[in-house]
Every structure is written in C-alpha cells, then in structure tokens.
C-alpha cells in the first residue's frame, strides 16, 4: 500500500481543501466597461459553478452577439460565441447532442427579445435542458445605444432621437403565455445574493430555466430600472417556500409579496399588471418533461435483436431468388 505523510493524508480526506474554487472558472480578463452589470453576473455564474463543483469541461456557455454575449470568453468552460439572436437554437443543439453537458445560454435583450424572438418562443416551448439568461439593460450596448424591445416609452436613443414611440415589450408576460414554459424567474445585478440564489434554483431545474436579469448599462442606459435598483418603489420580491430566499440585507431594495410559483394565473396577472418589477420565482413546473425525455420516449430504439432482423430482411432482398 502507498505510504502518505499524515498531513497529506488528512488534506486528502478533508473535502474543503480539494474543491474547485472561483479561480478555476476565470477566463480572459473581461473587457466590459467598469461598473457594467455583466461583471457581477459573471461572478455570480462563477460562484454558481463553484458551489455546484461543476467541472469546467462539463459546462458549455453559448451566447449570441452583444456586450453581454462576450460572456463565454470570460468564463473558463467550453464556449460558443454564436450569431446575433441565435444563441438558443445553438444551445438546443448542444443540449440534444450531449445531454451530459450543462448548457448556459447568455443573451442580451436585443439579442433574445428582438432579432432572436422567434427562437426565444420556440425554445421555451421545446423545454430543452438548459439555463437561459437574458442580461436586460433596456438598450443595445455593443452597437452603442439603439432602442431595444424593452427600452421604455419616450427614451431618446440613436434610433429614436425624439424618444421611443412604443411602450416596451413585456417579456415576462409573453413568456408566461407560451405553452410548455417550465421555469421563469427574474432577478437583478444589484442583488448579488438573490441573483446567485435564483441561478442556483434555475441550475437545479430540469428543463429550460429562463432567468431575466435586470441591469443598467452605466454608459447608455444609466437610468434603467431606477438607476439600477436605487428606487425601492419599482421592485417587489416574491417569496414562498418553493421560491427564492430573500436575504434580509436586500429588504431596502423593494417590497414583498407572497407568490406560489405553481400558480400560473397569478404569475400572469403579476407580470401583466406591471405595477412593480417582480423579483423571484414567477413560475415553475418541475413535472413538465424536457424535450429530450419526450423525444427519447417517442422514438424507436431498436434492440440489437431487432436491428439484426431488420438487417436480415434487407440482405434478404439482395439475395438471389430461389
């Protein structure tokens, strides 16, 4: 038997020493602006993977195009910087091809709700196993300040210099209306504990877990979401035993309301009333089977014996008559 000095033996025994830590998920140094909410989300995702002790080689981060979509460069894991609006179909492919991988999809509001809207709806309906995040800063950041679907009415941008003409799209309301939605939560960059707790719950979910993360872009949309959480009147935490825990330190950022995430009708009402931005788990149905499961069950998986018979029949056709 191998001999080990006692201290090494003990460190081997002690799980605290050997674990993956935050450094194991550091990719390139981020090139986002200082103060950008994307930085905090990156940290939260790194903590999420660390807390779950996910091997970087078993994680794939897929994104579209935008500031937020630079995410895969900065996270040490497999990455796929896709094309504008197409992060979800690419992620679907990755998830179906290798169900063992944990797929993290990162999109901007322009990326997902605008050019990617078609894919967005269908990905939710397909309910493939992945964790989808939209980093919503109510603006196109990378291309320098154009109106996005969530830009508030009247906001002056380079594409609407006289102010946005339309009221913004309500992504929560839309998603809560899509058949087969299985998980929808909302959180924000200025609530680090809530952000991490939400991602944790989404990570554990089987099916497509969609998390909208509110943030402001200090350069082009500094006013978004009450200057990034400075107005508690605009926000409301949802609490429930099946929901997301609220750290007492966060109380000053918004009111509270009890909401059962199994209750779709109330979630729809909450989202459509739009009095305050709900923060927490809006809806979760853990019993919905994922697309992988349904597809696997529906397709034939011929046994070796069956394959043999089929092959036999085919060869029979080639055999000479008689």
């Amino acid at each position: 038997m191998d001999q080990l000095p006692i201290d090494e033996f003990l460190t081997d025994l002690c799980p605290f020493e050997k674990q993956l830590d935050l450094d194991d998920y550091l990719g390139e140094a981020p090139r986002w602006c200082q103060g950008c909410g994307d930085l905090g989300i990156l940290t939260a995702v790194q903590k999420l993977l660390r807390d779950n002790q996910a091997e970087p080689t078993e994680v794939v981060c897929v994104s579209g195009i935008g500031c937020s979509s630079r995410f895969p460069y900065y996270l040490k894991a497999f990455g796929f910087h896709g094309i504008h609006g197409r992060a979800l179909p690419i992620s679907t492919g990755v998830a179906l091809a290798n169900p063992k991988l944990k797929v993290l999809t990162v999109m901007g509001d322009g990326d997902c709700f605008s050019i990617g809207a078609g894919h967005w709806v269908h990905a939710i309906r397909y309910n493939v196993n992945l964790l989808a995040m939209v980093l919503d800063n109510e603006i196109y950041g990378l291309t320098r300040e154009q109106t996005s679907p969530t830009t508030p009415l009247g906001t002056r941008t380079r594409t609407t210099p006289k102010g946005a003409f339309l009221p913004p799209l309500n992504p929560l309301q839309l998603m809560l209306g899509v058949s087969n939605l299985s998980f929808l939560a909302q959180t924000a960059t200025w609530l680090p504990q809530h952000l991490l707790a939400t991602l944790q719950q989404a990570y554990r979910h089987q099916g497509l877990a969609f998390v909208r993360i509110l943030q402001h872009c200090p350069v082009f949309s500094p006013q978004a979401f009450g200057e990034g959480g400075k107005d508690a009147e605009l926000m409301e935490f949802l609490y429930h035993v099946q929901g997301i825990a609220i750290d007492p330190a966060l109380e000053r950022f918004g009111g509270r309301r009890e909401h059962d995430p199994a209750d779709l009708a109330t979630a729809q009402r909450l989202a459509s009333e739009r009095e305050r931005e709900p923060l927490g788990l809006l809806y979760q149905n853990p019993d919905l089977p994922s697309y992988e499961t349904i597809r696997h069950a529906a397709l034939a998986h011929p046994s070796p014996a069956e394959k043999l018979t089929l092959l036999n029949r085919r060869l029979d056709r080639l055999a000479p008559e008689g």
Partner: protein
Amino acid sequence: MKQRLEKIFAQGFQDLQQQLLQRIAASLEPVEAWLRSEQEAERQHPPAPDPYLDERILRGLLREINIRSKLSHAEWERLEEVRARIDTVRAQIQDQAPAPLLLDQNDPAQIQQAFETHYGYYAELFRDLRILDLSLAGEYLPELHDSALSAFSWKELTDREMALIPPLVVFLATERPLVETTALALKLLTTGLPLKLLALQQNIQTPRETGRALAHRFHPDLGFFGLSLRSAYVLQATEDIESFDQEVMAALRSPRPALLSLWDGTGDDPRQSQLALASRVFPYLRYDPELGLDCTSCLEIGKNPHPETAWVSEILPLPGGGEEERPLTFAEFAWHVLDQKEEFAPLNEPGPENPSLADYLEMETDERHHLRPYILVSEAGETRVLLPSNNILYQCQDRMRLWRSLQSLAGADQPSEDAAVAAREDSPQEIAGRIAAEREQAVAQALQTLSRKLLGLEEMELALGGEDFKLDLRGLDEALSSSGTAPPATGAAGPSDLPWIETKLCTACDECTNINKRIFVYDKEKQAVIKNPRGGPFRDIVKAAEKCSAAIIHPGKPLDPKEKDLAKWIKRAEKYQ
C-alpha cells in the same frame, strides 16, 4: 407552529418523489427498453433458420450493444431479481409520495428501530440500483461485490442518496426538565444516526437563580448545547426570521444529525416571539458543519436583529418628559412575555443608586454594590419605571453571557486578523505592525474622547453600552473594515471615521478596485473590502463611493488632514455616509 411545520413538511418534500423516480428510471430504463424491444422483436419475427446469414456471427458483431450478450446466465438472473425488487419499490413510491417520518415518542431503542426500518427500506433500494448499474456496466465482480453488498446498510449511502430519503423527525418533549431533554438529545444525537430532533420551545421555565448555579438550566440553551457536538447541524430560530421555511428545510435535508430548537411562543401575539429574538433570550443561530473546519465559518447569527451589537434598543418616552433609549433584555421579556410581574417593584423616579439596567450590566461586579438598576416598560401608552428582582438580574446576566459567547464564536465581535492578513498582498509582519500601531492610536484617541465625555464636555452618546464602545475600538483597526462585517455603531466617536463597505451587497462591478487597488480589493468571494484605508487619498474613496454601482461604499472622514481640496471632498462624501 405545529401547523406551519406540517405545511413545510408537506411542501418541502414534494420534489422527492419525482427525484427518486428519476433516479430509479436512470438505472432501470436501459434494461427495460432492451427487454421491451427484445420481446417485441421475438413476437414479430420469431427466429427462423436463415439460409444466407450466420446469425451467431452477426450477434457477435453486435455484442457491444447487446446487454444480455454481455452477461452470463447467472448474472442475468441476478439482474432480473434485482429489477423485480426495484420495480416493486417504484410502484410503492408512485403510489404514495415519500414523506418524513414523524415520531412523537422519545424512547431511544424504539427510535433506533424505527430508523433502521425507515432507512433500511431506502438502503435496500439504493443497493439494488448499484447492483443494476454495476451489472449493466459489466463491472459486477461477485468475489468483490457479493459480500460487500449483502452487508449493505444506510451507512454506505452517499450524501446524494441520503438527500433523497425523507428524514426521520423526532419531536423532543420539552415539558420535562432541561436535564432530561438535553440528556435525551445527547443520547439520540450520539447514536450515530442522522436523526432530526425538533424541540418546540413553549414553556420557558426560568429557574430561580442565585447566580451560583450552573448555566444551561434554561430551556432555550438547547441550541447552544448543540454546538458542543460540533458535527450536528443546529438551528435555533423563531418564526419571524427571514426565510424561516427554507431554514427548517435546510436543517432537515442536511445529511447530518440535526437539532432544531424552535420558539413556539406562549400565545398568539407575534410581538412575543419578536421580543424573544430581540431580547437575546432566544437568539437565532445556525451551525452547519458542512461550511468549514472552524466554528466561525460554520456558525451564523446574522439573522438576529443588529447581530454586531450587545443589545437591541427601543426609544421610550420618560414619565417626566424626554425620552430614553432602552435596551431589550431578559427583564423586558420576563415582564411582557412570561408575565412575571411579581418579580418587579415599581419606582417613582430613579435616584443616584438606580442606574439603567444596560449601564448596570456593563459594570464590574464591585461597582454594582448597593445599586438597584431600573427598566422602563411601556403599557397602555404609559411608561413605567420598575426595579427587577435579583433573580431577573441574574437571568439578564446569563442571557448576555450566552449572546456574547455566540458573538465571539461566530466572529461577530472581532473579525479574524488572520483572515484579514490572508486577504492582503503585504507581508503579514507589516500588517500586524500596522494593526498594532493603529490599535494603540485608537486606544489613545478613545481615552481622550472618554475623558472629555466624563468631564462633561460632550453629551454622553454611547447608546449601546460600554461593550460596544470596546467593540468599536477594535473596529478602528482596519481588519474590521476589511472583513466588511460590522458597520461602526452610530454615535460612537472615532471608528465611524473609517471608510467601510457593505460587502454582502457588492456586485463585483470593478469600479472601486479600478480606482485604487491599494484601498479596495476583492475578498475570497469576489466582493469588495477595504484593504487599507490609507492606501490612497480620501479623494479616491469618495470617487469610488460616487461610482459604486450598488451605493454601498461609505467614505467616513479623511485620514490625512493635509490632503488637497479636503473641504470639497468631505462635502461630496456626505451623501454616502
């Protein structure tokens, strides 16, 4: 409380059924799919002699994907047997969702037996799943696995498997004397079984104390007692703490034995349980041995109101006009909740021999001679002055001792210098030297302030009592600000001059660290702390506070009075104090 717990039990374990079925399906599915298709194929195409193909050769070619062909007859039979057993359990689980087993009786032998039956059922299931997995992978070695798996018990289960088993919850009878409850808890927790013991604290019997008796005669001390076991999960809580339901679930789902001591109130008035928490009579504590190797990492007391101070205070109007800040102690609890009115004597007006209870408790024993402290209570909108009995005073003292002990075990009273040192790049000696110098300076400053105050030069403002003042002195060393734990108490001089960050709320946005890396650094959790408040000009700290995306940097006062344009920066800093 019982009803609320029932709701938590019912809702909290809902997902177990699904998870267990998923776990079973993961092992069973490949065999079942193969069996199904095998039967189907045989039904459709009964094997017939084939003139053109040698079926045996083809079967050989397909060997890799043919489960059965990998197994010998004996192996296949074992697999079938195991599969049938798992199938039965699956049907039972489908039929009835697994729920925690609640036991209301306290006989260790019977509990042990109930545990073996409850966990034995699941252990057998997981053993069978392992046999199935090993067989399918062609890794089942009879000479190795036969004996190992026949002696399989719940002890062999992994944490992940344990997490799929609904726990066994024992309700501890708390109406018995504390010795008995504690002895029973100790007996049960040291059986080596991961039992979940739940004590609903209803009748707080307060022994008449002389101060000479051993502590731990007080029922709520059960939680503190649990800490001494070190490897048990302990939760002590009242219903109104944040995320109570999740806290209870976390304790129940821990793979370890757990002791839950929950306040069940003495009536319907929610203020009673708030007072139990605020008066430190029944402080919140959570000890999760999974979190680290030292007590500070495992113990959490942050959900108590003002966890960094000795007491929680209330402002009450004085009978003769004006108002007084009053700490909530055991005395208030005894008056309002326990209704021990006979332990109090009324007083018209406090004289020189009547210090306030908070002041009294901070005094050394010899200073207390001939003094009778008073408390203020507000009833029906009227404030009354009362003298608590000696018994009550001893209880106050004892609760204070418990709270201080918790604070120091949780590291809430003084941040660990080691941790602060580890977080820096500078050499430990350099830092230790700086901390020592800073502490000396702080003490000198504090003495000066104190003597000025004693001479009546400044109005006394030490609202939270002497110990906090001491705490704050420690706060002066930068270790405190860099741990980001405690904001300096309000009203005290000196410490609040230092900049501090509400580290828990830091979003890791890089603003402050980009402004000055000698002042601001990230801690292990990538949240900003102040490494060295003298690492750069006050200007940098104010700029960081202005830029901070979470608005959590509080600049304090400038440390270098000679800095340029200081008046301007102090003005700009005001908004963020």
